[in-house]
């Protein structure tokens, strides 16, 4: 099997734009693999072949790279990639319990997809939102401060097609394929959605403002914090 001429033409146009961003073509490989995922939902055989052709690489070279990175799916996966952070801090704050209850509830485990093709569950390592622990990610959007109940509700909503909104992100949750296209470098126009910052991100600033604390004004410096 290979891409239809129309798909092929569209992918080639995108691929050429990606390659044009870089001084050397091979640098385009990671975004090209994201592009392939935006078409197929995973890094397909055709997709690897396509990347190899576009960059003049052997397919083995492409496969070698694709298998190194955890975001590249090696088989068809769900419309929604639902991750639960199980690194120490989130695990201890409740991520372990969320994972246990969610896998039980959804009936699938790590890197497994529900039979309706909607949900793939994933155990995540730290996603850099520790002050919002326990953290979940759906298609790499933030779902902060989760509980076992909210996690199960989230998965139910996704499976039933009810609208789901990330805590810090766009007003509309996109599919895994759509997310992959943004990662390939093709914006979806949703950057302006959502807050600048929220919750814990603003704690320090709030305290500084409440106390009238500011960085020193230029030209008026004492050794600020030094006793």
């Amino acid at each position, binding site marked *: 099997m290979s891409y239809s001429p129309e798909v092929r033409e569209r992918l080639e146009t995108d691929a050429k734009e990606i390659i044009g961003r870089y001084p050397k073509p091979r640098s385009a490989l990671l975004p090209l693999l994201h592009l392939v995922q935006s078409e197929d939902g995973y890094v397909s055989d055709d997709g690897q072949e396509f990347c190899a052709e576009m960059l003049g690489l052997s397919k083995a070279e492409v496969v070698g790279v694709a298998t190194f990175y955890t975001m590249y799916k090696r088989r068809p996966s769900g419309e929604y990639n639902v991750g639960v952070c199980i*690194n120490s801090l989130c695990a*201890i704050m409740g991520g372990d319990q969320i994972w246990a209850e969610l896998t039980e509830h959804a009936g699938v485990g790590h890197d497994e997809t529900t039979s309706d093709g909607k949900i793939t569950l994933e155990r995540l390592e730290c996603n*850099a939102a*520790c002050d919002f622990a*326990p953290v979940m990610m759906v298609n790499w959007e933030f779902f902060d401060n989760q509980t076992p109940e909210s996690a199960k509700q989230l998965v139910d909503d996704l499976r039933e097609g009810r609208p789901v909104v990330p805590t810090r992100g766009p007003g509309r949750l996109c599919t895994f394929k759509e997310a992959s296209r943004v990662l390939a470098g093709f914006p979806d126009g949703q950057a302006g959605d959502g807050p600048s910052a929220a919750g814990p991100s603003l*704690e320090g600033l709030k305290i500084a403002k409440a106390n009238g604390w500011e960085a*020193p004004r230029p030209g008026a410096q004492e050794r600020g914090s030094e006793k």
Partner: protein
Amino acid sequence: MTQLTPVLTSNWDLPDSFTLDGYGEYSAARKALGTDPDAIIQMVKDSGLRGRGGAGFPTGMKWGFIPQNDGKPHYLVVNADESEPGTCKDIPLMMANPHSLIEGVIITSYAIRANHAFIYIRGEVLHVVRRVQAAVREAYEKGYLGTDIFGSGYDLELVVHSGAGAYICGEETALLDSLEGYRGQPRLKPPFPAVAGLYACPTVINNVESVASVPSIVANGADWFAGMGTEKSKGFGIFSLSGHVTRPGQYEAPLGITLRELLDMAGGIREGHELKFWTPGGSSTPIFTAEHLDVPLDFESVGAKGSMLGTRALQIFDETTCVVRAVLRWTEFYAHESCGKCTPCREGTYWLKQVLKRLEKGQGTEDDLVTITDIADNILGRSFCALGDGATSPIHSSVKHFRDEYLKHFEIGGCPFDPAASTVWGSK
């Protein structure tokens, strides 16, 4: 008492802080582009800015290593692959204030005579990628990027590049391999990236927060920046409090602030509990305990107490937490993320994980403590890059501070802690 000093975080509460309207006119970049590049490098050297990505290498000195008039292209690569467990500052910074980073990129690139720069962002943060993409586009539309920026004759192309899930790509040479389209595995140094980096050309790799701090230094002066912080750890930094603390979050403060001061601001340890252990700068920095509450959080003081300032990722754990469980999870992380290039890290983290699993279940023996310490000794200093070294920090420090807790696991044949008690909802 030390006061907070919001600079990079100062506009985060504006609804449009991530747009040019909410940020400003790039006045520092305008000023910089009318200045001799070497004067900018000198200014950053004078400011005392040290890398905010963990290692703390002096930023201006790094820039100064770039050979000039060598006829090769120079590159700036921003390391936005924030993945160290506990570290969560660059992600909100890029989400709320991406223009501070882009303005810093312009100034830094100009100083090192680069005409091409890259922001390598971890792929797992879609909305942050969107925000940075949009900010870059906005800067291009305004003529702040591209050709003849501000009429100075200086040209700069900036590419936003998404990673694909690999902690190791935060290691600067692995990041370069990844950006060149390879598996992200670290390179042998020397040659250092300043001489042979991206495409074997002179390259500066700086952390997001380091680069984003540069516009404030250019705008306010090296003395202004150096007036904050301590003698050898100058300026401000974002301190990220997470875990069992009343108000976790981002606190921007002069280096040298203490955890006691930060906890005071953050409402202390969650109600009814007390501090047990914490990381000063992510999971790769040896853990501290309550006896370290007054250690000034600067590079020297934290180092003198046997840990590292790292990324100021303060993960706080109270007395409900099993340290063995925490260390097991970090170890599983390192084993998962080991790139496989060198034997000590690849094999060592794998075996550490096996032994720790047994220990956590209470099925180990005291000999296992000797074994994990021995494995860690054989990883530390013998690995190809700092990932392996980092994996040993939780092992060595937890055995040092909490040996009895390990022993307790085999005495009772299981974990003496109730995991439900340490959850967010467990204490209610």
